[in-house]
């Protein structure tokens, strides 16, 4: 495929997909190890009410208030899960399920009640995202990558995903040691003076940041899949955390690239005319990778479990 076609139509969506996948997979490693994998699921569901409320308050579909609204909703959901869990003495899974379904229902209801028919805001969009539409119209070929005028026309989602990824990396780099300590041995971390509760909340908030930025570009399916599938697959590959994080990045990139290519060009190869959902395809590819590692990866069994 030539640069004239690839750069404007496929480069930016693919890049955004890759960056969003990596931004979600990095904190996902810790969420999976801490058995909080479904927090990602909860966050990506409550993003919808957050965005709807932000829209109702400001009356416009702009990026900044919506991201704020989504982040606020993520915070509300985390607080609500903790409150219900503690006040009602309810097991965490049920508290989580209760919270995110209620908030999601609120979002759907608000969406139906308000007059949003004129704007592009609907549940399907929130779920699938619109990765395919993030095209770079100002580009005319590979040369545009060096052309400042064309670069100014890049989709704004790209910048936001980059910022989110940098934020995630900075958080992990700064808090790597306490994070690792508190993930593997919480009481030891407390004894060493790590504020484990605050660190846990910070991790969830960073995950929410990644989820919100990625959600904006690619929809909530990728977000859940990338939080869980690449880190889980990486977990089966190695016993060292550094290697696990590296593997998860590899798997995330692989899912995003292959998923995008299969979605965009797969149907053409099979003789159909139209592309299928890229977000769904990326999630599917990550699942296939996980299935492979679950069958063949070197460390797939629990340590101590007999080899079957």
């Amino acid at each position, binding site marked *: 495929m030539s640069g004239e076609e690839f750069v404007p139509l496929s480069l930016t969506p693919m890049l955004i997909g890759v960056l969003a996948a990596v931004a979600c997979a990095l904190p996902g490693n810790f969420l*999976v190890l801490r*058995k909080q*994998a*479904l927090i*990602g*699921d909860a966050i990506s*569901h409550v993003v919808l009410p957050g965005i709807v409320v932000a829209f109702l308050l400001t009356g416009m579909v702009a990026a900044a208030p919506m991201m704020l609204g989504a982040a606020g909703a993520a915070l509300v959901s985390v607080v609500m899960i903790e409150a219900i869990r503690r*006040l*009602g*003495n*309810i*097991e965490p*899974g*049920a*508290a*989580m*399920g*209760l919270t995110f*379904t*209620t908030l*999601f*229902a*609120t979002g*759907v*209801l608000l969406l*139906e*009640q308000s007059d949003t028919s004129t704007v592009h805001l609907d*549940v*399907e969009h929130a779920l*699938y995202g619109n990765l395919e539409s993030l095209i770079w119209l100002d580009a005319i070929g590979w040369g545009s990558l060096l052309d400042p005028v064309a670069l100014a026309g890049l989709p704004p989602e790209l910048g936001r995903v980059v910022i989110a990824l940098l934020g995630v990396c900075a958080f992990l780099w700064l808090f790597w040691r306490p994070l690792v300590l508190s993930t593997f041995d919480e009481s030891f971390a407390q004894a060493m003076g790590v504020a484990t509760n605050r660190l846990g909340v910070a991790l969830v908030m960073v995950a929410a940041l990644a989820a919100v930025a990625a959600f904006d570009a690619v929809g909530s*399916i*990728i977000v*859940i*899949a990338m939080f*869980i*599938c690449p*880190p*889980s697959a990486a*977990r*089966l590959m190695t016993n060292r955390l550094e290697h696990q994080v590296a593997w998860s990045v590899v798997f995330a990139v692989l899912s995003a690239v292959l998923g995008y290519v299969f979605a965009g060009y797969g149907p053409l190869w099979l003789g159909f*005319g*139209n592309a*299928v*959902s890229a*977000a*769904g*395809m*990326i*999630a*599917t590819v*990550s*699942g296939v990778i*996980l299935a492979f590692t*679950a069958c063949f990866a070197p*460390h797939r*069994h*629990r*340590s101590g*479990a007999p080899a*079957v």
Partner: protein
Amino acid sequence: MFWNALTLQLGYNATLVTIGATLLGIAAGVTGTFLYLRKRALVSDAISHATLPGVGIAFMLMVLLGGDGRALSGLLFGAAVSSWIGLLCVSWLTRFTRLSEDAAIGAVLSVFFGFGIVLLTVIQTMGAGRAAGLEGFLLGSTAGMLFNDALVIAGGGALTLLAVLILRRPMTLLAFDPEYAASRGINVGRMDLVIMALALAVTVIGLKVVGLILIVAMLIIPPVTARFWTERTDHMVLISGLCGGLAAWVGAALSAFAPAMPTGPIIVLTSFALFLVSLLLAPNRGIVAVYLRHVRFQRRVHMRQGLLALAQGQPIYEGFTLRLLQRAGLSQADGVATDSGRARAAKALRDEKRWELVRADQAFESAAALYDGLRDIETVLTGDQISEIDQRIGGPQGVAT
């Protein structure tokens, strides 16, 4: 108007939806109880998301075979098959790999859902317009419900209830003590799958009414609500079914009578309102009850310590204790004991001494086990026993003033 909707007088279609939804709510509440007691509430999330590819494939197959593609029973059958596969994936991943159950649930739900979305986009390109009904499975749509659809839902709900009724004893046993259940000859793995299968049945039946994202709420919220009101499983099943049915009934009626009120979200929010009321007001486990119990306990501790301080002639500086003693007329504003205060203080000190003897004496072992520093000794020992102890202590001594 709303009353009309509640009493099923709002036309044929609304009546169908309301009855179907209520039956579904009862079945979901009852089934969800066992899921919750087994601490696997979120498995329902994986089940419900995993239905989507099945719906898509069933639609495609029916169209390829020359059918309508939107026949509800066919779509639901496809949904059941694919979520069963998803369920097996979750249990395979947790049993044979080192992944924990939550990671397995998350992986299955996101991958199956993603694949379902891919299939939906394929369907959109294959037969334009005919796929219009499929999006309804995401959030549910009761608007165009036919009599046959309602019949499928009602019949499925009734069958699920019947299955729960037959299997309630082994399921209860499993929920509380899997090892014991295994020793009684119950196949734990298979029984777990049966519970999941019932949840799956409810999910599949509910797809049309509330949609696959919100059906999870109907399986989770009523059991959590019911848990506040009782400590007995059979009661919990009943209350949970009642809550689920009530929420579904009110939700369906409300959405039938008001415009722009989608059935699924209204049912979920009604259910959540019931939960909030229970969280606040339930006896024993509700927030208000817990708070009152805490305040009462605090009072008893302060009162007791204040009386002991009075008896031993120690000054009291703590404000709350002083206020308590004053309000009970046991001390004056400056913390000096009144006559009745002195009497109560002497009694408190004597009780303390009595307890000391009781706890030292092997003969009173069972009574001594009840000692918590607050309990009145009269509630533990008989009058004869107390007077026997009093003889050992000797006569009353003066109270320090």
